[in-house]
């Protein structure tokens, strides 16, 4: 089984590699043949430069010598720690709520499902600042829900670390829901039927059959949500404010540092860049192989 498929894989690789290399060469030299036409090639190269040059600039201008000192300062550690804790907590919240939500959207037919899906994914395209304002209106001390939280349970979310988690989860959860729902739709629902004929309730079937089958999709969605939460700025600063040690996450610290200590801002940015590269490397198998 593996032998012939390996062989055919190698064969298609050589097939693909040959003409592709030749095509680029003719395009580069003569501009004729079957190479990339200039009206497409030039904007494409500009696009690459546009996306890559700023990152290179960050590396070029990085204060490499003072970097260890900058990165070991108490403030940086505080911000980094807070960022990691809040992003992880927001991802956990997203998992607990988002996976069942994705299951509901993928597996249960109910009236208005399309509308619910649209509303749930709205935070994907909503400006994060608007999300922050909306959260204040809902969960602020005078918000429609926050008022009761405050008077009944004495819980206040805005301008607390918990508020950071709420703001990040609000923005990041849709990424997880979309990713998990897609995986669920691709998974064969008949496995759940098979589980049912063996005496499994719908929940048992979900827990023991569906969940393990879609685990890779959940992991990818969680990483995506985590990365989004880690970089969250607008909703966080609006809903949770900017208090060092309590609500000041890395992106807020970068923004603030840029005004007083640009070198520190660059150093902090490098840390976030490194984390992003690590995330991309982690997801490589899932998304980069498509090309």
């Amino acid at each position, binding site marked *: 089984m593996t032998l012939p498929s390996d062989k055919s894989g190698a064969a298609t690789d050589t097939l693909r590699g040959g003409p592709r290399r030749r095509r680029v060469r003719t395009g580069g030299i003569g501009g004729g043949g079957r190479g990339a036409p200039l009206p497409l090639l030039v904007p494409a190269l500009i696009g690459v430069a546009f996306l890559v040059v700023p990152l290179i600039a960050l590396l070029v201008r990085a204060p490499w010598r003072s970097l260890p000192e900058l990165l070991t300062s108490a403030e940086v550690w505080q911000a980094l720690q807070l960022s990691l804790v809040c992003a992880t907590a927001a991802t956990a919240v997203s998992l607990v709520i988002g996976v069942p939500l994705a299951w509901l959207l993928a597996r249960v037919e109910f009236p208005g499902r399309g509308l619910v899906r649209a509303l749930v994914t709205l935070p994907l395209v909503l400006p994060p600042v608007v999300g922050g304002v909306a959260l204040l209106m809902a969960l602020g001390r005078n918000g429609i829900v926050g008022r009761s939280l405050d008077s009944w349970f004495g819980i206040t979310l805005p301008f607390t670390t918990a508020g950071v988690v709420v703001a990040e989860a609000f923005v990041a959860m849709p990424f997880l829901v979309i990713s998990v729902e897609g995986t669920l739709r691709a998974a064969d629902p*008949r496995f759940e*039927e*098979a589980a*049912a*004929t*063996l005496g*499994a*309730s719908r929940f048992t079937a979900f827990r023991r059959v569906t969940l*393990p*089958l879609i685990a890779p999709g959940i992991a990818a969605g969680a990483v995506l949500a985590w990365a989004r939460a880690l970089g969250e700025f607008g909703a966080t600063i609006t809903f949770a404010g900017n208090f060092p040690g309590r609500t000041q996450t890395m992106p807020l610290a970068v923004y603030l540092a840029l005004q007083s200590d640009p070198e520190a801002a660059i150093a902090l940015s490098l840390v976030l860049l490194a984390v992003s590269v690590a995330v991309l490397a982690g997801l490589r198998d899932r998304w980069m192989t498509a090309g």
Partner: protein
Amino acid sequence: MHDAPADTTTPDGLDAHLVVERGTFRLDVALSVAPGEVVALLGPNGAGKTTALRALAGLTALTEGRLRLDGTALERTAPESRPVGVVFQDYLLFPHLTALDNVAFGPRCQGATKAEARARAAEWLDRLGLADHAGAKPRKLSGGQAQRVALARALATHPRLLLLDEPLAALDARTRLEVRAQLRRHLAEFEAVAVLVTHDPLDAMVLADRLVVVEDGRVVQEGTPSDIARHPRTDYIAQLVGLNLYRGEADGHSVRLDTGPAITTTEVLSGPVFVAFPPSAVTLYRDRPTGASARNLWRCEVAGLETHGDQIRADLAGELPLAADLTTVAAAELELHPGAEVWATVKATQTHAYPV
């Protein structure tokens, strides 16, 4: 062999009248099966066999009708609460679990502890000759092994009704032969009701005590394999069992077909009848035979030819459309080709007539 239960009030076994409506399609099948009996739902693709199976398992809701198993009404029971085991067409073994844990899944859902469930699963795997593959994931199993794991998984819940959806369809020809024989043995040992769905007449005849032929959502014929093979009642069944089948009005030894020509038979009957004869009973001539000992003589045109093993199957059109089998040599001597004119004869002793 078991006899079909004549009395539908029998408390034991399956007593079902399945009605499922989906758009313009309507399934309406009555099914009574005694414990220990194996019934095959046989029919062409799209006849509604799988829908019937899903309705029995509770995966598709009944529009109306009834479903009783050992005297208990199950129409409104959720699939997980029915004492039903299913072997799916492509088995649907859980890919993330070993063969052992696949089989232990059912007992576990029924409340057994992990250790008990695994012990029971190991017993079933052993019984089906799979003890060596207990630790294997489904993708490491061959088609025949996967089929047996699926059977063990379904049996491990001690179902009172075992359902098998095209149990051999996913196997290649050689494995199929071997697995068919094994499955027959396991089904014979099974003490409760077994219903299998297939479009393959050979699978149905080897595995089942009784066949229920379903066409277009309805039961068109029901009986033992040998009865159905001898007395087909629809063109579909006649084709399955390889017979030429006609319907007509009998008057003594002669049957006047609805389409015009008459066939002489040995049986003496009157009223509406079927007449059947195998393609091998047909003899072909290039010119009208002069001896004419056979009274059944028709002028035909060759519509098509295909190879059937070492035989040639000629598809003949004309006043009596029929299929004829002849050897390759005979076909060459007759210079058969599509469009060729031939004379076909069948001896009365080779035909078989029976009342509708």
